């Protein structure tokens, strides 16, 4: 983080590259909130790495003044893990969409959650594949009609929040791109959290699955009396899908993966001098 004192403006994280998103895309709201959080936390761009996969959300690193890694489809979390382990002092943010994170990359999420690296993972969930023109995604509702489901989607959508709570993530929350103030607050909390923080952001696709009219009436806040330390209560809340509740569902303090790595190194070095020659000696 930067020196205290001078105020850092959110705009200072903007790059010269103009977002290629459709006007009205929910991702603009997510990006604005991210700028706000970065400014609020005074994150130094040279120590910030934004990792993305493929999809509309995948272009995000290019719009954030930082180091970035635009990887391949679904592989945000493995790349982010490598970055974080190679230099634990960096702030690492992963961004992706629902297809990237829950379909092609779905196999990485449980392992990121249980390992608990200090990475913030923001999913811009629009319940469709925007970049390939609107096919159904793992979070599309039953009946969703599009190019690959001309007769309507017959698959049950998955519940990202319940899933990630079950996977053992230590920070789980939900935001909406149309409520940037609340979203900024949630992303800031996620970044402050020491461990794997997961933020699922409802971020409508204005072109292929415009939910701007149907989402707002369904929104509600996480109840004020919700116990964010209870995994069972968080899971229960996540299963109540009549409303889309925004805010923090679950937070737990658990040693991070990097802390575990540091412990292993300490243990290994206690038993052996850190020299290559001593390793050679084991083979003579």
């Amino acid at each position, binding site marked *: 983080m930067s020196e205290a004192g001078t105020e850092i403006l959110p705009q200072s994280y903007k790059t010269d*590259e103009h977002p290629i998103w459709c006007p009205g895309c929910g991702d603009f709201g997510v990006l604005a909130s991210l700028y706000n959080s970065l400014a609020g936390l005074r994150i130094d*761009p*040279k*120590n*910030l*790495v934004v*990792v993305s996969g493929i999809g509309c959300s995948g*272009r995000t*690193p*290019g719009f954030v*003044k*930082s*180091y*970035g*890694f*635009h*990887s*391949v489809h679904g*592989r945000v*979390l*493995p*790349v*982010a*893990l*490598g*970055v*974080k*382990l*190679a*230099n634990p*002092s*960096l702030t690492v943010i992963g961004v992706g969409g629902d297809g990237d994170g829950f379909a092609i990359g779905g*196999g*990485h999420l*449980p*392992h990121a959650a249980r390992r608990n690296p200090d990475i913030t993972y923001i999913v811009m969930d629009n319940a469709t594949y925007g970049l390939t023109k609107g096919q159904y995604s793992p979070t599309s509702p039953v009946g969703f009609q599009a190019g690959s489901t001309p007769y309507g989607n017959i698959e049950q959508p998955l519940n990202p929040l319940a899933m990630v709570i079950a996977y053992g993530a230590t920070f789980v929350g939900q935001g909406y791109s149309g409520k940037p103030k609340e979203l900024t607050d949630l992303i800031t909390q996620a970044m402050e959290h020491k461990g794997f923080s997961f933020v699922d952001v409802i971020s409508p696709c204005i072109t292929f699955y415009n939910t701007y009219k149907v989402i707002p009436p369904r929104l509600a806040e996480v109840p004020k009396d919700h116990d964010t330390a209870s995994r069972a209560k968080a899971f229960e809340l996540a299963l109540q899908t009549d409303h889309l509740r925004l805010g923090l569902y679950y937070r737990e303090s658990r040693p991070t993966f990097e802390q575990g*790595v540091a412990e*292993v*190194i300490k*243990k*290994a*070095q206690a038993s*052996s*001098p*850190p*020299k*290559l020659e*001593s*390793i*050679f000696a084991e*083979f*003579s």
Partner: protein
Amino acid sequence: MVDYVFRVGGEGGEGVISTGEMLTLDLARSGFEIYTFRTYPAEIKGGHANYQIRASGQLLLSQGDAVDVLLAFNQEAYDKHAKDIRPGGVLVYDSDSYIPPPVAAANGGAAAQAAGPSGQRTGGGNIPALVNSTVLYGVPLTSLATEQVGVKLTKNIIALGFVAELCDIPRETFEALLREKFGRKGETVVQKNLQALHIGMDYVKQVARKDSIKLGAGPRKTKELILSGNEALALGAIAAGCRFYAGYPITPATDIMEFLAKELPKIGGFVVQTEDEIAALGAVLGASFTGKKAMTATSGPGFSLMTEMMGLAVAAEIPAVVVDVQRVGPSTGMPTKTEQGDFYLACYGGHGNCPRVVMALTSVEDCFYGIMRAFNLAEQFQMPVVVLSDQYLGHRKATVPVFEIAKVPVVNRRTPTAQELVGYKRYRFTPDSISPMAMPGMEGGGYIAEGLEHDEGGYPAASNHEMHLRSTKKRYAKWAAVEPVANELVRIYGEPHPEIGIIGWGSSEGVIREAVQLAQAKGYSVGALHPKILYPAPLAKLKEFIDGTKAVIVAEVNYTGQFATALRKRFAYDFIQLNKCVGLPFTPKEIVDKIEEVAAHVRSGHRDLAAKL
């Protein structure tokens, strides 16, 4: 000159491999050069396992051909290996387990009925008759172990004691080895094993000696390392500066990960076992992007999964080392057997124009220096380097001189100067096409490692047609710059301009080299060329070698001749292929046989016949 081949065979999971490894270590410490070969079942328990050790007073190049001493714990081991015993060689068998058919026949079949637990097959069928001169020693290993030591598994140690005494291998080395191996388990266990060793040694007095195998102490007095290809590779990676490893368990590459998991933390590094091979290479690229030298090791199935990530490493120009310890494919194939079948995948796996360097390791010693060079090339040219090993090389042990790290000076990637960080462009076009690579933490170096086609700044240029051509040329220019290095890393054995040339790659180097020596001794004009970098190929050296030959044999442990096919693309020359595809490496004899066959055709003026073989 001492030069003997020992083979141990028996039921998988019953200590065949550890018996072989103990004998290996003992022979190495007794002053002999060692070359081992092991095959083992794909199952954890059951199935057939065997371990071969060649010990000699001089440098060894192959696992050898015929077996001098076969230690066969059960009937299956006998059935599989008795035919490989050389005339005058020795068979040591557990007479409690089975009676070899020749013995049974000599005893009129009575012994066969008397011996072994019920249900144990006792010969007959299609078992090849033993050469008459084979010396057979039956030792009641199981009953000696259960009745005298009281621990059934000590039959392995009893057998080792018998073989050691029989072959005059120094007693003290073995005793010291047992103390070292079992010391951690307490004095009782040490004593039980020493007792077993002595029972085995003493039993030699009870057999009528008919063989003449004598080793004594070996000639080497200097210290050497005894380790496997995978172990040497892992050590070399550490020496090259690798401090991050991500991988997924897969035979026969897993022991690289296990080795590094133990050793890397000692020097501040770490191993993460990822959820799959895609994640493994993904994490490696993330770590390398951040400035750590990183690698992964896998085998064919895992390498197949990494294909897309290889393309990302090429496009984003990220140094990475990917080791493929090849096994038999396609699909799950034969997980514990060897093959050189991944050449195509290593060179061409991936969509688009996707240049990467492909190297092949040639010996246990080369595993150390080769992987160091791989890291250097990856760092220098900012691209993925695929390193091909295989089960045969990865899992065989050899005695090698203590490694000298300074032999291969460590190379690090070019990073931007303070001046270059002003208006920094990650993918700047430079005269040598290598762009300074910034790392997170560097002020002014922020950029996007980009898998989309991009401009010099790293910004997507997915619709810029000219930029795609320019960037593709940049990436291929780096690749082409490796060719001079490939030309330097070529080994020639035998005649440099022979009548009959042999080209091989990877783990068959020693076997081919030995075959060349044997063929030269028979008067043939032969020479072998063995490249260490396969892609880009060392074209200048290949041309020089091929020019003037009357025939060139390309020897590969695969079905179609993948490297030969690549050579035909570059040379209008009718290469003669020698392929083996049974999950086993070449033996020197197989190469010599081919040389003789081709030579006969060449001399009779029918080279075309040889080419069609």
